């Protein structure tokens, strides 16, 4: 599958050199990552009339080279933008481009997580602000790849079935004020692209304080890494005595846990 992409990418690259800029009305910038797939990403994820701008304030951190394509760390931070309402993370050259979408509702507009990549690709975060503008940041990750078409370790072992949806977590005070929550969920996160192994992944996670006030909504897609680990920061004004996480996977299995301090 990725070979087809590769060939198409080369063709597009050749075209992109001459007219790589004017993809949609209102977008006047060229892609700082110079990806031949940007035009397709623009069409796939954003309405034609939406204003989409490349914005250095959207920070995407990932290693330039990732040897382990099954577990590539990525952090997104949109804290420099006012009023981030929704953040979509995607990878231009992944067979499944969408990685995760999250909506900060009190949590800091950022998220740390890990992903599977099939080949070298830009990894981007598009941040929608209250005025409706999408701000896009990103970085290239080079990898020998193959991360999307391998079955999870979990799919080959009965162990995970007993522990499916198990959450471990911890809360830290941050020097800057506020708190950091890290949580790990036992889940195979199979993409459905490995032969004979159906897609099986976490679709929905909701983080609230112990009173139920919302902090963060996460919509997950297939490329999140097996047994996903998330890092979330809570501003000082929203810290609480405890937190809760709840959600479900695409098979309807529930995830529900108390995050104690």
């Amino acid at each position, binding site marked *: 599958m990725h070979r087809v992409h590769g060939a198409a990418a080369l063709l597009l690259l050749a075209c992109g050199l001459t007219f790589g800029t004017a993809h949609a009305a209102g977008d006047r910038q060229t892609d700082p990552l110079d990806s031949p797939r940007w035009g397709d990403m623009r069409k796939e994820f954003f309405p034609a009339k939406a204003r989409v701008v490349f914005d250095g304030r959207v920070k995407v*951190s*990932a*290693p330039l*080279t*990732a*040897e*382990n394509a099954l*577990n590539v*760390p*990525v*952090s997104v931070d949109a804290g420099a933008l006012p009023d981030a309402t929704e953040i979509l993370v995607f990878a231009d050259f992944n067979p499944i481009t969408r990685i995760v979408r999250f909506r900060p509702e009190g949590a800091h507009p950022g998220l*740390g997580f*890990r992903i599977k990549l099939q080949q070298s690709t830009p990894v981007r975060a598009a941040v929608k602000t209250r005025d409706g503008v999408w701000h896009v940041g990103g970085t290239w990750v080079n990898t*020998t790849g193959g991360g999307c078409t391998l079955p999870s370790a979990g799919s080959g072992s009965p162990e995970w079935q007993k522990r499916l949806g*198990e*959450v*471990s*977590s*911890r809360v*830290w005070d941050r020097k800057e004020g506020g708190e*950091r929550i*890290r*949580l*790990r969920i036992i889940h195979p996160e199979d993409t459905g692209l490995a032969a004979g192994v159906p897609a099986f992944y976490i679709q929905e996670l909701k983080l609230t304080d112990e009173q139920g006030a919302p902090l963060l909504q996460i919509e997950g897609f297939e490329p999140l890494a097996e047994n996903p*680990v998330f*890092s979330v920061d809570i501003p000082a004004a929203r810290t609480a005595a405890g937190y809760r*996480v709840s959600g479900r996977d695409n098979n309807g299995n529930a995830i*529900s*846990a*108390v*995050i*104690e301090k």
Partner: protein
Amino acid sequence: MSILSRASRSAIALFTLGWALLLAAADMDYGLQPVSIADGTWVLVGRSEDFSTANGGNIVNTGFIVTPAGVLVIDSGPSRAYGEQLKRAIARITDKPVTMVVNTHHHPDHFLGNQAFAPETLAALPGTINGIHTEGGTFNENMYRLAGDWMAGTEPVAPARQLTAGPLELGDHHLELIALDGHTGADLAIFDRSTGVLFAGDLVFNDRAPTTPHANLVAWQKALDRLESLGFKQIVPGHGPVAQDAAPIRQTRAWLGWLDGNLRQAAEDGLDMTEVLALPLPAEFRRLAVVEAEYRRSVGQLYPAYEQHALARSGRNAR
């Protein structure tokens, strides 16, 4: 010559150089030059680099000991071509037959030359043999990706003969096989009591950052203590130059100790993996070859376990 412009002379020079490089590549000649470091003891020191199509995977140290009873080869290199060239290099030095080829552990640059040698001469620790059986194929495919044409015809061959720790008499050399672990699940060191040469395998790196895909940092540091206690005169590390003192052991231990402490502290502080990758390397390690790349790989390989430990430490599974 005077009728040629400077430009055309440059063009000719470039053309000639290009052909020379092309011919060298077509030969796939590693240019192996064994260096004698003690009585009957020869080493071939590889480059302190990552695997590449330029070095053909020759980033590893191999060696051999010539005795009246035959030749012992220590590690067979990263490819069939390397193994064959090593065999020819040995034949240029001695007419004694190769009676044993040991693989110090199951990483690809240490055993993928096995094909060049008679199957009955191949030997390794049981854990190494098992590792070659289970992971050899994947390693081999990966080496084709990283080293390209140099790998032509290379296939993983696992030794059949299982080694156990203890003395090994070979002609007039009194050897000690030392079974350790930490770099992988089975690491063999070979101490030649007759010459004082210690072949440490990848338990010891010298001026090159250690690799950790199968590492247990605690066990590895213990193994280094054992090696340091041996009273050797020379040490042949798995990667990097031969040394006459324990400095490479101390350097490897210092790196592993720092790595372990750094990752543990990072996990205890709640750092995300991308934040761990951004931590600065201490000045004392910055001169190690490929240190940035190895740190990045080590974080990817090792940090998840430290994280799990730190998260589990909350002791209250949130369910």
